[in-house]
């Protein structure tokens, strides 16, 4: 695109003229506003952003509804997670485990029945120091520096499963078979995966980009899941962390998990 000198002078002269008169400014302003308002069909909500996304799970609230699996259903439906109906091929982004497994090594004989029978919601911890991304030989999984989310590229993953081996939380699943026939109802707005790749929770980064909270947080009927910016002292998660004693899964491994549990 080349503009010769004469054309440039002409355009700049006209601009100067237009700027000189108030009418001209109005015209420009009008053009501006129409160009912004034009695409009315897309969703242009402000994305939710944070320096460090984190979650606080209040188990006392979660316990209230026994056998509740609303968060699991919401997540798995939203993300086209297949249901193979057997533990061998199982794929799960969020699931529940008894306390003794969720906090393996922290249970003891005399723990209260209430805690023993608590079904703890588990998901990717989005570690600050994730061992899974360290072992990936193709950069198919990485920690997003802007907000700390541990991301997955399902098109680059070679299916070596080293990340599954390295994760101390059992948060990663592998597609042992073609998942598509096992998805009850495919949500066209989210990709399905192919066999032979690893997948896991992504903190609903696709929803955050549209200004929506993670599906599990939004769906929880007990409001047991709080989601927010760990670096913002005013955020809900920071308020909860100030008010309650919280534990994390396997913090001694140095992974710095970002899911906190109020027991």
């Amino acid at each position, binding site marked *: 695109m080349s503009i010769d000198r004469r054309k440039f002078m002409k355009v700049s002269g006209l601009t100067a003229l237009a700027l000189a008169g108030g009418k001209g400014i109005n015209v420009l302003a009008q053009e501006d506003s129409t160009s912004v308002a034009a695409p009315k069909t897309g969703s242009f909500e402000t994305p939710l952003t944070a320096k460090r996304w984190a979650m606080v799970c209040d188990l006392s609230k979660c316990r209230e509804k026994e056998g509740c699996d609303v968060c699991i259903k919401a997540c798995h439906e939203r993300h086209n997670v297949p249901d193979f109906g057997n533990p061998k091929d199982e794929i799960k982004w969020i699931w529940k485990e008894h306390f003794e497994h*969720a906090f393996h090594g922290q249970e003891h004989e005399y723990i209260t029945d209430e805690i023993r029978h608590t079904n703890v919601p588990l998901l990717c911890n989005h570690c600050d120091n994730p*061992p899974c991304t360290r072992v990936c*030989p*193709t950069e198919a999984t990485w920690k997003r520096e802007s907000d700390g989310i541990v991301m997955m590229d399902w098109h680059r993953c070679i299916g070596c*499963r*080293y990340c599954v081996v390295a994760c101390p939380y*059992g948060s990663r699943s*592998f597609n*042992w078979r073609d998942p598509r026939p096992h998805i009850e109802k495919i949500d066209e707005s989210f990709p399905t995966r192919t066999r032979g790749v690893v997948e896991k929770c992504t903190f609903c980064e696709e929803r955050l980009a549209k200004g929506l909270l993670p599906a599990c947080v939004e769906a929880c009927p007990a409001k047991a899941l709080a989601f927010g910016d760990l670096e913002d002292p005013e955020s809900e998660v920071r308020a909860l962390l100030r008010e309650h004693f919280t534990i994390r899964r396997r913090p001694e491994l140095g992974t710095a998990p970002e899911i906190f549990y109020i027991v």
Partner: protein
Amino acid sequence: MIEKALSGNKQYWGWIALLVTTIAVAAYTYIRYQYQIGLGITGLSRDVTWGFYIAQFTFMVGVAASAVMVVLPYYLHNYKEFGKITILGEFIAVASVIMCMTFIFVDMGQPFRITNVFLYPSPHSLMFWDTVVLFGYLVLNVLISRVTLTAERKGIAPPGWIKPIIILSIPWAFSIHTVTAFLYSGLAARPFWLTAILAPRFLASAFATGPALLILLVLILRKFTKFDAGREPVQKLAIIATYAMAVNVFFVLMEVFTAIYSNIPEHMAHFQYLFVGIEGHATYVGWMWTSVILAVVSLILLFNPKTRRNESILVVACIAVVLSLWIDKGLAMVIAGFVPTVLGHVVDYIPTLPELLISLGIYAMGALLVTVFYKMTLSVRHQLRTEGYK
């Protein structure tokens, strides 16, 4: 030189036919079954994500590295007795590395994306480094064996530039098994592998397995071909296997002591699963005790000079070494890392028939490569003896 492998007696062709058939069955199983359906046809699961394929890979890396046990005495200590068998060791290394790569290939969920390892090199991943050192080791050994065999054929000394490359291949051999051990021992999530002695233990078991296998091969060659490596190199290899086996058993006992005496449940649980079983899950208990008994038997037969010097008993000892260490490394080591799981569940993994068939095919491919390489070498040497240098 490959034409040398194309002439042989009925026995030779029968053996080749057997191997090719096994490979064909495995290839069919892989292409028409595993590749179509996915790794779901294996016994692997969400909890036990690595199994038989990766275990065979690990075991064969050891065999590949063990070539150094003939290369080192011959080139660094000028131990002339190994002159005739050094190239056999190098050929085992070449065949083993190719097998390792194939085991990795069949274990990939998306095998045709494997080039991503090179397109997006990730120095923070040990798997990237393992790929690098294995490829390097393959190149080194192909080059060395080709140059030295060509020189032998022409009746001249190998060119001087190959010597530094041979010397380089010695630390390189240690590196492939060390980096392979690092794949496991650097993972905070898996206490069974999280031990600094894993790499030394891998090397010790490799240096017992490799020489034991080489003894068996040399004795097979003596029986079926005109090639006789002589008595002395076999006895020397037996001594190497003896001490490597002793060191390996010592290292394993170190591990058991630390895990059991420290009384840390996470560390004990894996040994418990292997040797006594947990909550009725005892799939590998029989295998483990077999491995222990074979190790003890092999050590008795190897350390006693009378039995070691008797070649028919030495064969039994070598078979015991290979089987014991295969159970330890080619079966238990990988699987036990996953049981109990990171969440403390006890799950079972048993390789499926297709998984075993595909693995068997890869072993057959390795055997075919070794057969062809050995045939080439022996033909060259036979020709030299009968017709003189060309």
